[in-house]
């Protein structure tokens, strides 16, 4: 039996239906992005127009860049709760065993779960960013709006949103696959948001100066982690341990 996108799709559809009917998930997905867009919006409308000098332009560009970095917390944090719940939550509900009894492979199950966290995150993050861009275009001062649209800001948002989401999802699922209860998994899952927070904080404190080189290096690291993440998590996914609570050699493919 080969990798089946039909089985991945079955998991994905089920998850999306379940989210739609889960008030807690909807509130979490709605509130967190609002929280993380507030600061960039304040920055957008409180940044004074730059003067004529190139130093002022650079300063404005940096401030816009930093405020946009906060918005990258959306893809880092929003999916972590969903991902941390994905395996251990099903286990606690008693719904994991019926799924594992089907021909589904662990890789298919994990990719389905990951996509179910990834797709809504991407939709929310890009929507919020779109709203931010719209607000900038319509209401911000002209040179502030130019600073938002020019340079690499838009590209960075578009590029890092899926990369950070992927990283957060795989860490969250890995934690979920090894946890014994949902609360512990979700608490640990929030740790997944710490590294990007650290990067943001370091940039905000001018310890790291945002540059194209740093952005590319960070993107490359995330790309590698995302690419191999699902294989690493699949190796940690022990069907027998998940069913019995113990550890042993699984009869698993």
């Amino acid at each position, binding site marked *: *039996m080969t990798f*089946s996108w*039909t*089985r991945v*799709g*079955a*998991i994905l*559809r*089920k998850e999306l*239906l*379940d989210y739609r*009917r*889960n008030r807690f998930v909807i509130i979490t997905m709605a509130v967190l992005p609002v929280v993380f867009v507030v600061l960039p919006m304040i920055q957008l409308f409180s940044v004074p127009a730059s003067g004529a000098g190139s130093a002022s332009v650079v300063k404005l560009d940096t401030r816009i860049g930093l405020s946009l970095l906060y918005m990258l917390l959306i893809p880092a944090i929003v999916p972590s709760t969903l991902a941390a719940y994905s395996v251990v939550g099903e286990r606690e*509900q*008693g*719904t*994991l*065993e*019926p*799924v*594992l*009894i*089907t*021909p*589904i*492979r662990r890789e298919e199950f994990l990719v389905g779960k990951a996509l179910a966290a990834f797709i809504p995150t991407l939709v929310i993050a890009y929507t919020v960013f779109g709203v931010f861009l719209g607000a900038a275009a319509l209401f911000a001062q002209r040179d502030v709006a130019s600073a938002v649209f020019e340079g690499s800001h838009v590209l960075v948002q578009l590029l890092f949103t899926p990369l950070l989401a992927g990283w957060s999802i795989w860490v969250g699922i890995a934690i979920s696959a090894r946890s014994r209860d949902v609360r512990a998994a979700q608490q640990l899952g929030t740790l997944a948001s710490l590294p990007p927070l650290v990067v943001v904080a370091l940039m905000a404190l001018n310890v790291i100066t945002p540059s194209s080189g740093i952005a590319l290096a960070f993107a490359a690291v995330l790309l590698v982690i995302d690419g191999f993440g699902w294989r690493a998590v699949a190796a940690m996914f022990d*069907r*027998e341990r998940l*069913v*019995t609570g*113990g550890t*042993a*050699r*699984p*009869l*698993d*493919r």
Partner: protein
Amino acid sequence: MTGVGPAVVVEQLTKRFGERTAFADVSFEVGYGEVFGFLGPNGAGKTTTVRTLGTLIAPSSGSAVVAGMPLNAENGPAIRARISIMPESPGLYLRLTVVENLQCFAGLYELADARGRIERALRAVNLADRAQDLCGSLSKGLRQRVALARALLNDPAVLFLDEPTSGLDPVAAREVHELITSLRARGVTIFLTTHRLEEAERLCDRVAILNTTLRLVGKPDELRERLFTKKLDVRVRTPLDDPGQVFGALPGVQGWDQVSSGYLLAVSDPDLAAPAVARALVGADADILSIAESRHSLEDVYLELIDEDVEARRR
């Protein structure tokens, strides 16, 4: 789905979790179309055996063939495609409707004609009219029926039912029994794990009694014969003056005991001994109330074996 040869062959299968043995040296066969009862007390290893045969757990030693395929890592997905397991807990997605639950699993089994299969499965468990209900709104008995419909979706060669009536009220349990009976009539091979002995006696062609090791396998009648001598239960209005003289010389009567209701006679063949006993009682001027074969229930068989195990552990 049927095949040639047994549906399940288990040979010296053992599962250990570290120092703890879940089950050891278990061997049996289940034929296609058979309802096979797997009995045992809590902690006997029944569920672990089912999970092992369902490829969720790797055996520590021994071998098995499930639905015609050797039990090994490579065959895991293929075996799971051919069988179904209904766990003790239905494990439904409560925020999804009945049909949405089944659609999810139809996708996991990659079923062609998923819609038709879902309709047939729902009809089989008499739930067609509840298809659009949220599973969270269903009673425990109805959830169990949805789980059974889910287990039927892939037309399994072997259907494992793990304590299907656990926690159900008598009415819901009876509905599940009726469903199992109807599946049996359709030729579905059923591996029924239970500790409800009357359930096994009523539904199963053969039973196995497990208490970490397999104690007995056979038809309920065979197990009774193997464990217990045949007896005639003789009831008379007043006790006999000299029962030894009445029963002692009768052919086929191997011994007798006086009980509160009358006499229990150990016999080699109840059908041959009963007329002779009746004649002897009439000859002794006794008022006969009844003469009947004393039947041991499967519960008697089960308790006899489990008591033996308890005694053995004490020693």
